[in-house]
Structures are given as structure tokens and as C-alpha cells.
């Protein structure tokens, strides 16, 4: 087993509802959904975010999309127009979650490492 960042196993999108941010985490490969389900628990997500999330973390499963949905409560400094945060609507909380590391079998890591990053040296048009 070896550690890998979620950015190489899953893509994600986030949004807001008041002071709560949501992060939908979608496995690149359907067969890695179980790995995510086992290891990206609400407890670990809460610990990962530390001071960024004031309240509880809830998790919901969407096996049909091989996705997990997280609600991060009290994460947006009051949310909406009240918040003083640059990311007042939690638009990029998704990418903050993708920094988290989980333990995966070596072959999975070998195959997936780099999946979530733009190819090095490519010309971006």
C-alpha cells in the first residue's frame, strides 16, 4: 500500500447553501469508488480541513455516479454576501479536498499517479 492524493483518483465540484459548502467527489475510475468510500470518511474529511470547517461534516453516497457528496457546515464565514472570504461561495473547496491523501494498493497508485494534472510541457491553447 502507498499514499496518493485524491486529485489523482477523483474529480470534484463544490457549491454552497448558506454557510455550508458541498463537495461532490467523483471517482475517475468506477472501480475506485469503494476505496473512496472506505477511506474518505466524514471523520477524516473533518480532520483534513481542520480550522477551515467550523461545523460538522456529513457524507452521502451516490454509487450510481461513483461519487460521494460532503456537506461542510459553517465553512463559509457566514456564507453568501455576509462572508469576507475570497471564496465566499465555496467554489473551490472541491480542490482543497483533493489535497487529501489516502492509502491505495501500489498498482493503483502506479496507474493513477498524475491523472488529475495537466500533462507536463503541453501547450495550453
Amino acid at each position, binding site marked *: 500500500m502507498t499514499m496518493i492524493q485524491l486529485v489523482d483518483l477523483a*474529480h*470534484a*465540484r*463544490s*457549491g*454552497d*447553501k*448558506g*454557510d455550508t459548502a*458541498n463537495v*461532490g467527489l*467523483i471517482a*475517475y475510475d468506477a472501480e475506485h469508488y469503494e476505496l473512496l468510500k472506505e477511506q474518505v470518511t466524514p471523520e477524516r474529511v473533518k480532520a*483534513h*480541513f*481542520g*480550522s*477551515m470547517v467550523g461545523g460538522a461534516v456529513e457524507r*452521502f*453516497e*451516490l*454509487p*450510481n*455516479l461513483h*461519487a460521494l*457528496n460532503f*456537506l461542510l457546515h459553517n465553512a463559509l*464565514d*457566514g*456564507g*453568501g*454576501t*455576509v462572508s*469576507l*472570504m*475570497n*471564496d465566499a461561495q465555496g467554489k*473551490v473547496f*472541491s*480542490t*482543497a479536498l483533493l*489535497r487529501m491523501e489516502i492509502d491505495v494498493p501500489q498498482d493503483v497508485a502506479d496507474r493513477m499517479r498524475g491523472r*488529475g494534472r*495537466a*500533462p507536463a510541457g*503541453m501547450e*495550453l491553447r
Partner: protein
Amino acid sequence: MSKKDLLRIASGQGFWGDDLEAPVRQVRGGPIDYLMLDYLAEVTMSIMQKQRARNPEAGYARDFVPLMERIFPDCAERDIRVVTNAGGVNPEGCAKALVEAGRAAGVAGRISVGMVSGDDLMGRLDELLANGHELRNMETGEPLEAVRDRVQSANAYIGAAPIVEALRKGAGVIVTGRSTDTALTYGPMMYEFGWSPEDHDRVAAGVVAGHINECGAQCTGGNCLIDWWSVPDLASVGFPIIEARPDGSFTVTKHEGSGGRITRATVSEQIVYEMGDPTCYITPDVITDFTTIELEDEGNDRVRVHGVKGAPATDFLKVSIAYTDGYKAVGTLTYSWPDAAAKAQAAGRILRERLDRLGLVFDEVRTELVGWDSTHGDLVGDPPADLPEVQLRVGVRGQDRAAVERFTREIAPLVLTGPPSVTGFAGGRPRVQEIMAYWPALIQREQVESGLTVDVFPV
């Protein structure tokens, strides 16, 4: 009711401020039956309410009227119907302007404008409170009485019934107030396919279609994380088109030749956007279980969606209330290498010390470094000394407007009285903004639904 086997519902706006050309591309780029335009977000209604307070003719998405003037002839000629919540807090004003725009566009006698109103509860608020509707905040449980004197707008999220009625009355363009975003898409499906409100699974499928449609290009490759570097031609991104069928299944696609990408993954990203409990997605017409959605990638920018299950709606409607809650301002300065972050942090400390010395009281003072920690917070650790540049971003919030005003005059002085290598202040003093806070509440649906009206005006 018509008897179509396939209905194409195109999305043309995902919010007020979206790509102004997108609706035109949708209308002229290929076959569509309906154009749905979503203009409203949580804070939009209060902005519109303020505009109407200054000018009784205002209070709706003004961009919508010149847009319609451009596409009215196309819509009349090809029988494309338009459904939108552009009416904001003034559907009457919007409908009136629209009729005039239609005449200017030369479609008089060929099209009519439908108007849905009655979602605005502002004028009935005291009556509702007096009758025991406390409109408690869904997040805090507090009754609305606590902020009643500061309420700026109150609108109920309404469902598809009035949209269906307007279509039945022959309206070609339907303008609503706070219709729920998804109803702009599933309302036409209910009308065209003759679905009854008790057809929970089909209406729920329509909700999923609406959720995919409501953010425009966010499901067709825009703001899409997966393989973003290879999404083709975002400069002319195709907005989504729902190809709906009477059994509730539908296909997400876009016009041929348009940019962007539609795959299972891009659609999935939009499905999880702003998601709460996926088994219980509540709209005025049905509760949808998003864990029942089945997606099939058909290739060629087509994703088929089926299998959606729904359950009866609740007895309540959500009310979106906005109230004033103090003031805020945000100021920024840019610091350069060497030790960019250390300079910015020092400037932040000096600024706080000065604010304290002036005796200014705020509910919050927040310091972030844009280019280092403003999006990932503590997860990124301490900034390195060789950061080429960083932007100091300081925000304050408080009830005292004068204090916030004074803060805005304390940023520029740092340029000559603080740490060195500072620039980026050319934009002038930060602007003081009045905070419009959001108060979500519930109300018994009959309180609202009995007051909804549908009018149709010929152009």
C-alpha cells in the same frame, strides 16, 4: 396539450450575468422547441428589490428585454417558446417592457407574453406573521420577528403549475418571479407530455433535467475539472439541450459544431453541484432521489439519463428572504519578492493595529493572502520566502457604517507608511457594501398558491 415524442429544451442563461450570446446561439444554432433562461440566485432578488425601490419600473433582469428583441423574430417564426424567471421582483414591469420589445421587433399579433406573479410575499409579510406564520430561519430556528424591520425581500419558490397554465393559454414567452430554477425546464415537459403532478417519477426526471440545465455550460465542459486542459473550443461553448421523451428519459446534448464537451463525467460534475442529501432533493412539485439516476454515455457529446425515482412533494414551499445586516468592505494591496508574503503579513498586522488604535469596532477582520492561502487556508502551511508576489486581502464587517467607511481610508496609507515593494492600489478606495443576508424559511404552500396569478398579453 400537444403530443410530441421528443422535446428539445435548451438552456440559455445559468445566472444573471452569464454569456449574453449563448441564448442567440441556442436559438440559431440548430433545432430547439424551448429556451429556458435562469436569472435568479439567492441574493439576486434583494438586489432587484432595491432597484425597484428606486425606480418602480425596475426590479427584473433588464438584459432579458434587449435579448428578446433580438430573438423575437426567430422565436415567432420557428415557434420556439421561452420560459424564464427574469421577472425577478417585478414580473409586471418585465412583461410590459417585453410587449414593447416584441412590437419593436415586428412580431405584433404573432406571439403573446405570459406573466406569472404572486410569489412576492413582501406586501403580505405582516399579515402572515400576525396569522401565526413565524417564518423561522431553517438554519438557526429563529423566528423572522427578530429581523422583521430589516427585511428587504421575501419570495416563495413556486413550482411548475403556473408555467403549465400559461403554456395552455398559448403564451409564447413566459416571465415569472421566483419560480424554482428547475421548473423552467420541467414545466414545459409536464405541459407537452401531459404529465400529471402525481406522475412522481417523470416529474422527478424533469427535475434532474432542470438541475443539469440550470447552470448553463457548467455541464458541457465549462468550469469542468476533469481533463479541463483538453476541452475543445470553450470560446464558443455549446450550452446544454435536453432532448426529453414522454417516458421521462432524456438525453443531454448540445448543438452540432459548438465547443465544449458532454460526457458522463461532465454531467456528473453538474449533478453534484450544490447538492445536499441526494436522496431528498426537494422542489415544490416532487421530491427527487438523485441516487436513482442512471447515466449512459452514448458518445458524440450525448449522455442519456433514465431510471429517476420521485416521491410526493411536501406541504411547504421554501421562502427566500433577504434582510440588511450591517456593512462590509474589502481592500487589497500587492507585495513583491523578496519575502513577499512576510511583507504582506506585516502590513496586515500594522493595519489591524491602526484600526484598534482608532477604536473601530468590527464583527470581523479577515486577512488572506491571494496567491497563497485564500482558497486552501491552513492546508498550504507557511508561505515560502521566494514567492514572486502575493496579494494582501483584508476584509472587515460590522454594524457601524462609519467604521467600515474609515477602514476603506486606511488601505492606501500603507503604501508609504508600511512594508516596501507594494503596488496594485490604482483601483482606488474600497467600496462600502451594505450586507444583504439570506434567511431561508418555510411556509404552508396553500398560503402562496392561492395567490398565484397567470396573465397573458398579446404583443
